[in-house]
């Protein structure tokens, strides 16, 4: 305690500084990392292939081909690290915005993957194993692959947007699964039409693609969105 002969030059007790607040959004981090991974991977693959003069219609396990594969994978991994770090640094204060990012990213990412798997299965059924190998060596196989990815990504993004706008998916509420599947169905039909335009032989299974796609999409995304929200609560408990 001070008396009249003493002079305080600072606070007698250390005042603890308020804890630093972080508003990191796990889905935004994943979104940045995922986009960087895909963008850098595909970009490097095409650029390096062209630079080294790789002919994808006549693939051989030469040094150039292996360098393109390894180089694009390394570039994708490094880019995803940087992308993730940038995403982590962006503060997302609103729980609602964090939820919307989780829905949009998980639907787009998982929807693209599910769509590609379904299309590959259907294409395999149409062409058979030998036909698939010939198909993979076609000059436009890479372009068709990218277009299939684009159909999956755009369709899934549209579904996510519709589910948010119709409030079928709401923050802190369980999804209405049947309503979500019903809303996703028309978009899945559009995706199936677009895929048929790209790959006409797939038309035989167009209905299968449209009817199947929404079911795993809704169930898989529900779990991944839940994980995103759980991690967010660990960082920002009140959201």
């Amino acid at each position, binding site marked *: 305690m001070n008396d009249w002969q003493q002079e305080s030059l600072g606070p007698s007790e250390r005042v603890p500084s308020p804890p630093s607040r972080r508003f990191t959004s796990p889905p935004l981090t994943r979104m940045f990392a995922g986009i960087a991974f895909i963008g850098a991977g595909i970009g490097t693959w095409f650029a390096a292939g062209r630079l080294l003069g790789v002919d994808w219609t006549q693939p051989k396990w030469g040094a150039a081909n292996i360098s393109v594969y390894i180089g694009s994978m390394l570039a994708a991994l490094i880019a995803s690290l940087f992308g993730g770090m940038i995403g982590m640094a962006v503060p997302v204060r609103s729980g609602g915005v964090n939820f919307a990012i989780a829905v949009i990213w998980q639907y787009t990412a998982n929807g693209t993957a599910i769509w590609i798997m379904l299309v590959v*299965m259907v294409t*395999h*059924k149409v062409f058979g194993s030998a036909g698939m190998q010939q198909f993979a060596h076609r000059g436009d196989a890479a372009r068709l692959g990218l277009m299939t990815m684009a159909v999956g990504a755009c369709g899934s993004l549209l579904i996510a947007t519709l589910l948010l706008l119709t409030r079928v998916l709401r923050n802190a509420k*369980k*999804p209405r699964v049947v309503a979500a599947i019903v809303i996703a169905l028309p978009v899945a039909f559009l995706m199936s039409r677009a895929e048929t335009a790209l790959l006409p032989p797939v038309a035989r299974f167009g209905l299968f693609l449209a009817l199947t796609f929404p079911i795993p999409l809704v169930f898989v995304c*529900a*779990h991944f969105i*839940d994980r995103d929200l*759980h991690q967010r609560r660990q960082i920002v408990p009140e959201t």
Partner: protein
Amino acid sequence: MPWYRPTFASFLAALPISLSPAVVAAIIVWFLDPGTALKVVSALFALFALHNVIGDVFVHLGAIHVDERGIMMKGSLGDLRAIEWREVTGAVLRERENPITRTDRLLIIDSDDKRVMFNTNVLKPADEAALLAMVRRHAPLVVERDTPAV
């Protein structure tokens, strides 16, 4: 005090999830006409689905009873397991938020030589609440929250 029994609706809701590995395996086999390795994996998926369905049947044939004396569980094969409240050495309720359906809950009551385990989320919500309220009245129920499944 009644016996609390799982609902048929809960059994029907569990079936599609349990069968989903077999459905995936069937789709893969039909579309991809796979080689031996993938056929073996598909067969394992089908076996996993069968294991899940058998688990569902066993869970939904069980029943649980609580009264002022203790807790008693009837197993799917008619076996009885009972613990009096004074014998209870531990009572735990494991919870896991399910993003689609009700919260998964597993009640575990221990004595020195016996254990009663029951999935309470297969009961009607009102029955589940009544059962857990009764357990809480007689034993200090510790809730353990599990992290999400994914």
